[in-house]
């Protein structure tokens, strides 16, 4: 294993925020004496990411995901700790670093509102010092992957949100970055556009070998793109390992879905096999202990006989696992 592309050690970021109680008296008091409180947005996290990985960075709102991305991209200075990305200390914002990195934030624009994206691309080409030939090739690829043909010549203000996100993606990748931080890249987009952006990110990673750290509240993004996830909550790292192992480690149960033949669901008591969590006509959902799941499933098949039309044993939905992680804050790192 070579040098990691992203190397974060005990990174911390504390914001000092001003607080004020409601009401006139509190407002007047705040003119004289302000109450301040320290908020530990990132409370000491450590992880490494290797070249070419696509890693999902998960956590509820306020977990510290975006703050971490801002520190790693160089936008914010940390309060303590170390980080190296591509061998650079991000917050020094050396040009050599900025030329190889991008931070794309969903719903945030970096394009000039009043001119077509193609003209913004030209400006970015000069700022990043991209040679003409590379620029043409990159724009050509991005145009093809993101289907931008009709979009880049319209003023950005005339584009829909989804169209704008696509040209924002292209603008953020003009310099062919080796590291991309994507913060909620599909937020606010319709299902079809989300899917297109996902395919694009996967294809971009495959073609360029870029390392990608991605935050998203849409688990579909994470499932489609990331084999590895890092979960943080209240600024602490809760889990770092394969997505596939997250459920195994964080949810000690499995879901058995049994589909019963006409009328059987009403007469057979399935509570003996596990905790019934849902009934939808003939489909009954059971939550069972992870270890005992095969044995319970076998019993269901044997004992229900012809009353059973279909049966499946699955991990709980990833959203449920994540929700469980956030609510219980189980700490663990896969090795």
């Amino acid at each position: 294993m070579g040098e990691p592309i992203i190397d974060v050690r005990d990174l911390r970021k504390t914001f000092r925020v001003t607080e004020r109680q409601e009401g006139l008296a509190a407002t007047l008091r705040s003119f004289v004496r302000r109450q301040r409180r320290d908020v530990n947005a990132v409370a000491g996290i450590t992880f490494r990411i290797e070249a070419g990985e696509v890693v999902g960075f998960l956590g509820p709102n306020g977990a510290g995901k975006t703050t971490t991305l801002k520190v790693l991209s160089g936008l914010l200075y940390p309060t303590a700790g170390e980080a190296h990305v591509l061998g650079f200390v991000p917050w020094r914002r050396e040009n050599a670093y900025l030329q190889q990195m991008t931070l794309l934030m969903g719903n945030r624009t970096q394009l000039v509102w009043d001119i077509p994206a193609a003209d913004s691309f030209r400006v970015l080409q000069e700022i990043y010092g991209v040679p003409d030939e590379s620029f043409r090739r990159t724009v050509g690829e991005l145009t093809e992957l993101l289907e931008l043909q009709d979009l880049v010549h319209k003023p950005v203000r005339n584009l829909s949100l989804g169209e704008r996100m696509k040209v924002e993606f292209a603008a953020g990748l003009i310099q062919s970055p080796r590291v991309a931080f994507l913060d909620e890249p599909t937020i606010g987009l319709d299902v079809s556009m989300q899917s297109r952006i996902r395919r694009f990110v996967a294809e971009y990673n495959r073609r360029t070998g870029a390392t990608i750290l991605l935050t998203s509240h849409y688990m579909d993004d994470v499932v489609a793109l990331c084999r590895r996830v890092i979960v943080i909550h209240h600024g602490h790292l809760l889990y770092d390992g394969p997505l596939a192992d997250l459920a195994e480690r964080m949810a000690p149960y499995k879901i058995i879905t049994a589909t019963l033949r006409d009328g059987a669901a009403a007469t057979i008591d399935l509570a003996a096999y596990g905790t019934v969590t849902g009934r939808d006509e003939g489909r009954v959902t059971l939550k069972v202990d992870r270890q005992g799941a095969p044995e319970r499933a076998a019993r269901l098949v044997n004992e229900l006989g012809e009353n059973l039309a279909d049966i499946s044993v699955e991990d709980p939905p990833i959203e449920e696992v994540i929700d469980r992680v956030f609510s219980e804050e189980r700490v663990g790192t896969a090795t």
Partner: protein
Amino acid sequence: MIDVYRALFVGQIQAASQYRVQSVLWMLFSVIRPVIFLAAWVAVANAQGGRVASYDVRDFAAYYVALSLVSNLATSWNAYDFEFEVRMGRLSPKLLRPLHPIHYAVVENIVWKMTTIIPLLIVLGFVAVTFDARFRATPVHLVLFVPSVILGGSLAFLGGWVIATSAFWTTRVHAVSTLWDRAVFIFAGQIAPLALLPGALQTIALVLPFGYMRGVPAEILQGAVDVPTAMLLIAVQAIWVAIFYALLQVVWRVGVRQYTGVGA
């Protein structure tokens, strides 16, 4: 860097062309105030037998025409734009590019002036003829005006950026920038030519940087100061530009560490 500036200019000219009517209206608005002061001083001078100290009516006309031109060339609205960018998170993408954000503002500033200079000159020509302005400038004055107005513009621009940078700490800088604009209004030669300010106020105006942004280039263009004095004033302008440049380096370096990326 030349290629970068060329690309920024092209982009900014395209953006500015979308709002050319607005630009011209802003320019006209900026001329109204000096013309009002001109009319007021003409009334005062006429009431005093045609003169106020060393200025007669035609000198006032030349001064305020020159001041209007300089005000347009040396104006800077960075603090307001910068506050908006900090508050809305629009600064973040600029901070993450290998180009200091000040360069975008430089280009924006210059392009605005380019798009408004021709209609401005037409309007000022009309004012000059109407009020029978008398310029005493020699060719040497005209040559000295060029560095003087560039230094005045640079000083206003850098001063505006120093003020704007306080947004890193306060997020909102409107009050500070308004105070700065009021100081410009009082001490930069808008109310009266610096030479006509009463004793103490004139001393203060010559010590503070504001007069060197607008009043000094205007007086040089008008030909109100002799050539050696003009050169001395230009030297003082250069010192102020150096001071504000150094100040901006320090304030930026410290301030950018405070940036919290709110709204981004």
